[in-house]
């Protein structure tokens, strides 16, 4: 179907218990948080989450939605240790596959190309292979080099927040860095995209920005307009991260330290309620871009 418009609830209804879900973005940057919040409002459980993790991972773990996390880090940058992920880890409630950041994107690329693995030197000489059960392969050529076989990180679904899309899934992705969103899209059986701005036909509106089409529409299953949908993470050039909101979220991990007591503040009964509680889309749009 060429018209790929869906609601956030429609998207979450397409997901099921036990799925492996990739979440685009990086730490507190470009996270599809509105879709994550929609998962938090659902009954989904036993998920495997594959992410360059931030509050997406922390919230899903805190809410007991997660069976396993595939990660290289989980961090909110200025708050280096993601507090709710930390709690879940220290409680021993998660299965994990911990990999290097480069291995991670290599695993997405293997999945994108339909390969069982891609070879790499990364991981040799560390604890990663033993802890993750990663196997080695030997080069069949004269060098005979032993390499780690980074398994494909095949995703049942990927969630990505983009700047613009049309209803056919022609996306435009801006911002100084788009991280590995392209590879999440290609590693997934189905990719659901939320966007700051939904337009009718991209060629009628923004043809001059066509080179920002980070991944082609054949990789897009569903599209929903959710402006402010990355909050509290950053979405350049529209808005920066909301460190005040992250700090409140981090503080809540200590006091009261119980997600069920605070979920309403950080998730809301609906996305409209959530946005209202933080001052509306205007407040999100006013957040300054981060300086590094």
């Amino acid at each position: 179907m060429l018209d790929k418009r869906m609601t956030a609830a429609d998207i979450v209804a397409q997901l099921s218990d036990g799925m492996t879900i990739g979440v685009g973005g990086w730490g507190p940057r470009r996270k599809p948080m509105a879709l994550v919040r929609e998962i938090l409002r659902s009954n989904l459980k036993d998920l495997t989450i594959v992410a360059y993790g931030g509050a997406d991972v922390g919230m899903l773990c805190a809410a007991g939605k997660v069976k396993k996390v595939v990660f290289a880090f989980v961090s909110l940058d200025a708050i280096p240790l993601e507090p709710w992920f930390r709690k879940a880890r220290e409680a021993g409630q998660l299965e994990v596959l911990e990999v290097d950041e480069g291995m991670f994107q290599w695993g997405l690329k293997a999945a994108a190309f339909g390969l069982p693995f891609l070879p790499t030197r990364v991981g040799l000489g560390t604890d990663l292979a033993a802890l993750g059960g990663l196997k080695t392969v030997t080069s069949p050529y004269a060098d005979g080099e032993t390499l780690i076989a980074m398994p494909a990180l095949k995703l049942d679904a990927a969630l990505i927040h983009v700047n613009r899309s049309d209803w056919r899934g022609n996306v435009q992705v801006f911002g100084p860095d788009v991280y590995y969103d392209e590879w999440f899209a290609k590693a997934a059986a189905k990719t659901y995209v939320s966007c700051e701005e939904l337009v009718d036909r991209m060629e009628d509106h923004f043809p001059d920005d066509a080179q920002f089409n980070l991944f082609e529409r054949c990789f897009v299953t569903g599209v929903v307009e959710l402006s402010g949908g990355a909050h509290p993470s950053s979405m350049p050039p529209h808005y920066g991260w909301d460190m005040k909101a992250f700090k409140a979220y981090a503080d809540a991990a200590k006091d009261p330290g119980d997600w069920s007591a605070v979920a309403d503040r950080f998730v809301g009964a609906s996305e409209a309620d959530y946005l209202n509680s933080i001052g509306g889309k205007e407040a999100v749009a006013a957040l300054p871009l981060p300086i590094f």
Partner: protein
Amino acid sequence: MTDVTLAELCIYAASEAFRGNGEIVATGVGPVPRLGAGLAKLTHTPELMMTDGECYLVEQPVPLGPRNYDDRKKAGYLPFSRFFDSAVWTGRRHAMVTPTQIDRFGQINLSQLGGTHKQPKTQMLGVRGFPGNTIYHPNSFFFPSHTTRVFVEGEVDMVSGVGYNPAKRIAGGNYSGVALKKIITNLCVMDFGGTDNAVRVVSLHPGVTFQDVQAATGFPLEKGDLVETPLPDADALAIIAQLDPHNIRASVIKDNPPAQRVS
């Protein structure tokens, strides 16, 4: 020069680690390493490449702390989305970072402390890019507090970066890219120039003895020339001040002591 701080001496020592590195990406994570890389680029090694901390390559190192978003002067582009292909996996980088633990093999940890991998006592960041960094390009380290908690006895709790431990090296792997360079701390500068890449003290900060360093280290250290770590000159201090207008460097080492240790 009595008013030179220990942090400034460490920045100067950090800049020396990048001397003559060539056209590679110098990455300093944290105020002292970052100022060290910037100082190196603005003095003895202008060919160094570096980013603004986000994704643009800059020829003028960006100052630390609050500034206007577009103050950076973009000369090139090196986003995370191509960091591995352009910098890390081609070996064209030297990073200086601060892990949570390091051991006598130069193995580092920033993933977890204590417990098991299934249930760590303390979950930290995760291995981030350390496994790839350490097998592909040179790395140095900065520790603001040199203690036996950081320089551990035995091995680190979770080996997140490749060191010179023969027992950890899977046979047939290519370890030719492993290059651990300098360790800069609040007490001294060390390298891996000892027997079989053992950690060796090469310079002591003013007023610090080898015994002080050994007492703060969980494994035996070798002795290099043990010269005194040089103080930054006035030009270097001026550049450091310009790159750190908010004096963030004053918060790096406890109580911001002077470079000359008072006994």
